[in-house]
């Protein structure tokens, strides 16, 4: 009896302390505008509001008809909340949007890149949780369209002047067209990939400041020089973990694989390539980087924040020499970005990623991009479409791509001096000449997770052969035995 009393007392004591801690934490959070806890809440509130409205409309107009309609926009928040480019952009549009009967509300999902797509898929399944507009990465757009989550927009885009008069670069429309030939979104940015490098560090190590590697060996030997001359600096950073999701597949593996001349998927036969010399070469590059310790410590690169750690901390702080990543990382360094760094224009260089042995076309890049789509379960589809037309007109698209450091998909923005004067936009757009796209197949997202597993296993010590065999086995299971080919 005594014991019981004692423990209920001590338990309540500890509980109280924990609660106190929790409260004081909250207090701390609200002070921090960009704190993760806050943004998570914003997302939840947004959804609740959305669901509430849905109920209101269903119950049949007993409310006053003049009540504002809320258009919710869901996008990925990587933890910086109200400091995020997307948030600021939406809030600005919302303020200036001419139709005052509509309220525009950001309802971000705070998640790692990999989790975002699962959360989106779950949200789109139900009328209660689907937003009115969702930002879709073009790699998963086809899958979500096949699942019936997205509204085909053909009628709408064909009646929109900007779409039909050539303002959108024709090639970029491919990214939002699913395998059924229908358009499921309006693209708002694209990107290219290459080797970012720190010219100051290159100079210190005696490497050329105007670096133009011609083969993978050039890249590796530059990394080795850095390691030798500047032992405290990480020579080369590539995303290599499962936690960085699509970034590992696209920025690292596919940049390497496509550089060997090999592809993921054979368009002519409609088959996935599960074994090839190209796969082995790409994995061997990853293996070499890790074996010779030319890469970042694995404890830093195998978590979901790896990309941000590299571009927001290591690169600006001069702790990293080369980063294989996307054209958008400079968005971080703008005054409005997550890690302002005014000197980036002079310190950074952006070299094209060479093909493995320098074979034609000499360099390689992959292009992706994001689009605004309307979910099939959205409550206000017409209003959402009107807003998309406004949000992705020339002026507003330009604001977004400049703030985010992305490449535009509109030819009129591409010619605008305000856009071309941004550092690196010229080069990044130039790289797009040789750009390759990911297979527009609805199995791609699943295959992509197998790629991430394969790359991480090589990074942690599995041999390229063993990793490829496992990949072949897993991909065969996903796409079916009739849809694979070994080379």
């Amino acid at each position, binding site marked *: 009896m005594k014991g019981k009393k004692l423990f209920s007392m*001590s338990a309540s004591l500890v509980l109280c302390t924990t609660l106190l801690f929790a409260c004081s934490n909250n207090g701390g959070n609200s002070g921090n505008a960009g704190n993760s806890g806050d943004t998570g809440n914003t997302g939840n509130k947004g959804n609740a509001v959305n669901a509430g409205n849905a109920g209101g409309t269903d119950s049949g107009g007993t409310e006053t008809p003049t009540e504002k309609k809320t258009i919710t926009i869901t996008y990925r928040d990587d933890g910086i909340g109200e400091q995020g480019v997307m948030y600021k952009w939406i809030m600005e549009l919302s303020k200036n949007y001419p139709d005052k009967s509509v309220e525009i509300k950001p309802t971000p999902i705070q998640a790692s890149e990999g989790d975002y797509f699962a959360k989106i*898929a779950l949200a789109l399944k139900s009328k209660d949780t689907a937003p009115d507009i969702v930002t879709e990465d073009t790699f998963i757009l086809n899958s979500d369209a096949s699942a019936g989550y997205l509204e085909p927009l053909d009628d709408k885009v064909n009646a929109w002047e900007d779409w039909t008069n050539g303002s959108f670069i024709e090639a970029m429309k491919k990214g939002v067209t699913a395998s059924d030939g229908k358009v499921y979104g309006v693209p708002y940015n694209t990107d290219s990939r290459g080797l970012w490098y720190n010219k100051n560090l290159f100079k210190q190590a005696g490497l050329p400041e105007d670096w133009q590697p011609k083969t993978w060996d050039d890249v590796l030997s530059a990394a080795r020089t850095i390691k030798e001359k500047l032992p405290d600096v990480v020579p080369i950073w590539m995303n290599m973990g499962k936690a960085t999701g699509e970034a590992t597949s696209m920025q690292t593996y596919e940049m390497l694989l496509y550089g060997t001349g090999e592809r993921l998927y054979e368009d002519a036969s409609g088959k996935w390539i599960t074994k090839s010399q190209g796969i082995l070469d790409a994995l061997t590059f990853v293996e070499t980087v890790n074996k010779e310790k030319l890469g970042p410590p694995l404890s830093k690169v195998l978590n979901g924040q790896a990309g941000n750690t590299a571009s927001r901390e290591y690169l600006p702080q001069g702790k990293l020499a080369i980063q294989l990543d996307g054209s958008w990382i400079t968005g971080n360094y703008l005054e409005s970005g997550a890690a302002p760094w005014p000197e980036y224009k002079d310190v950074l260089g952006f070299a094209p990623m060479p093909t493995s042995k320098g074979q034609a076309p000499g360099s390689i890049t992959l292009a992706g991009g994001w689009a605004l789509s309307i979910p099939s379960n959205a409550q206000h589809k017409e209003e959402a479409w009107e807003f998309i037309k406004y949000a992705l007109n020339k002026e507003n698209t330009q604001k977004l791509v400049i703030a985010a450091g992305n490449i535009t998909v509109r030819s009129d923005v591409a010619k605008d001096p305000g856009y071309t004067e941004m550092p690196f936009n010229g080069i990044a757009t130039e790289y797009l000449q040789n750009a390759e796209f990911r297979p527009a197949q609805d199995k791609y997202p*699943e295959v992509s997770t197998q790629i991430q597993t394969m790359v*991480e*296993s090589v990074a942690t010590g599995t041999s390229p052969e063993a990793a490829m065999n496992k990949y072949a086995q897993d991909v065969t299971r996903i796409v079916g035995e009739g849809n694979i080919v070994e080379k």
Partner: protein
Amino acid sequence: MSSLTAGSIHKKRKSWTWLYFLLPSIAIMLVFFIYPILLTVFYSFTNLALTGEAAKELKFVGIDNYTRMFEDPTVRVSIWNTLIFLIGSAVIGQQVLGFLIALLMKHKNRWFRRVIGTIVLAGWVTPEIVCALCLYSFFSDEGTLNAIITSLGFTEVTWLFTVPMLTVILANIWHGTAFSMLVFQAALDDVPSEIEEAAVVDGATKWQILTRITIPYIKETITTNMMLVTLQTLGVFGLIYAMTGGGPGTSTTTLPIFMYNQAFVNYQLGYGTAISLLLLFIGIILSLFYIRSMKE
């Protein structure tokens, strides 16, 4: 005659009343327990997916998910990891440590018991995710442990990377030991002091008292506690997911993590449900084993 009728009515009413009382709990069990399990069994035979064409059309795929599970080498790795995690953190860690703490606290003064009890309980009342974050920052590269080590002049160790399984096992021990401690404290308080005193008079050593009297006396509590802790540990997800995400590689991928990855990272809900049934099956086997050993 009349008394007989009255009696049978009474009997009848009595035979129905138990049902009235049980109905709410049966209903709750059906809706929240039996129905989801049946649904899980059903989905494990389908190609249910989060996105892609399979998300639109649910197809029956027979035992595909199960054959796939037995062919998948990661499943074997996950089962192995689950067992290491279970034995390390539940059987050896929580059970033995919980028992030791309870034993050492027996017959000690009130303040000692109160202070130690509170400290151990702190790990238990801390929500799982908070606990995971605390221990993550303790073991992380720039964490407390490395700060202590480097200040003593040793080089840093990337704990979460070089010994990931050990860190999650220690985290789970820290989080869960209080439960075993409470159970054992209650049990030890029930061991009659007369028997122990008699043993002392007979000249038994402390070790003999422990192994010949105390442990046999609380044998049933040990088995029950073992079962509860095992089942709790089998389902641990948040702690491992937040600390290591199942990595690096697959070195801390236990079955719950593997299940999550298949269902929500690879979007294969059908396969995920099949793995969850494997987990349920392992839980049932272990429970049967414990229940059996309790009867002996």
